[in-house]
């Protein structure tokens, strides 16, 4: 069975994840959706690193005398995932900015109706 402490940590990470996801679908402001996406990214990153650290005690730098390190693979994977997330967020923000400049609003429903009228 899972210890209470570990369970609480996992539930917290799950809460961050769901907050981010909720923000992406419920908020009508584009910037808030993008922030939600960023939250989703962070939640997954934390999950990987957190869970990977359970099997050891030391940072995975093998200085003389160090053993019983944590799992280095999740950390390597999330390095890539973080950078990819940053790039996608940057491009999304550039798109949102462009839409704001041409339509004057960040609200997705109003932008959709404006685009619909344009077509």
């Amino acid at each position, binding site marked *: 069975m899972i210890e209470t402490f570990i369970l609480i940590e996992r539930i917290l990470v*799950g809460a961050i994840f769901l907050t981010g*996801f909720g923000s992406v679908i419920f908020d009508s402001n584009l910037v808030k959706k993008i922030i939600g996406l960023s939250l989703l990214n962070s939640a997954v990153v934390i999950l990987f690193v957190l869970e990977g650290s359970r099997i050891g005690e030391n940072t*995975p*730098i093998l200085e003389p005398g160090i053993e019983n*390190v944590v799992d280095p*693979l999740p950390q390597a994977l999330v390095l*890539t995932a973080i950078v990819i997330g940053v790039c996608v967020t940057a*491009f999304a923000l550039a798109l949102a*900015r462009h839409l704001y*400049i041409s339509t004057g609003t960040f609200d997705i429903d109003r932008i959709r109706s404006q685009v619909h009228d344009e077509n």
Partner: protein
Amino acid sequence: MAKAWAIFGSVSSLTIAAVLVGAILLDPSDWPAQIRDFTERQGVADTGAINLVSSIYLGYRAYDTLGETIVLLLGVLGTLGLVHVGEQFTGGAVRKSLRTDFLNVASGKLGPIVLVFGFYVMFFGHVSPGGGFQGGVVFASGLVFLAMGSRDAVYSPLVRSSFLHRLEGLAFLLLLLAAIIGVFTNVGLFGNLARQLGLPPAYFIVLLNILIGLKVGSSLGLLCLILLEKAR
């Protein structure tokens, strides 16, 4: 009516997501230790880096790292295409009031120090918890400091977007060459070149760290400068 459907859709998405996330997060099995054991045994001997995370993303899985530098390259290209330099987002008056002498002086003076720190993190990535990415990000923030600290007309040559573009392209090309040379000298894609030349394998890791650091630093720096509308 459409609004009711929208709310129904959102609520059901969230609940289903909660169910799936819960199913995965509440798994009671133990975290597998095979990879940790393998890298503890072999990592330093295979790649020369005592930082095991570096040994993974610059050694065993360097191909993924290449993919991620490609995403950075594309991110910069895409953002640059959308944000036209000179277009006003906020009013000019608002922007001026955010600039104070303190900001100019402090960031301008701190900039070079941050850059040096970034280089330190890049170079020593194989023995400390640093590396190409981390050093690159610090490097990018150093560039932002320099840009913020410059007065309107005086821009440090490091912060000019043409320089950063060229640095980015060059670092990417060199990274690709480092990958390909491995293919030609019989160690496979991204194989450890230094071992072929008889040098300690850590040299290759350091080289990759520097290239990645420059690539990431110039890309992220360029991204920040574009979005801050300070790209010149």
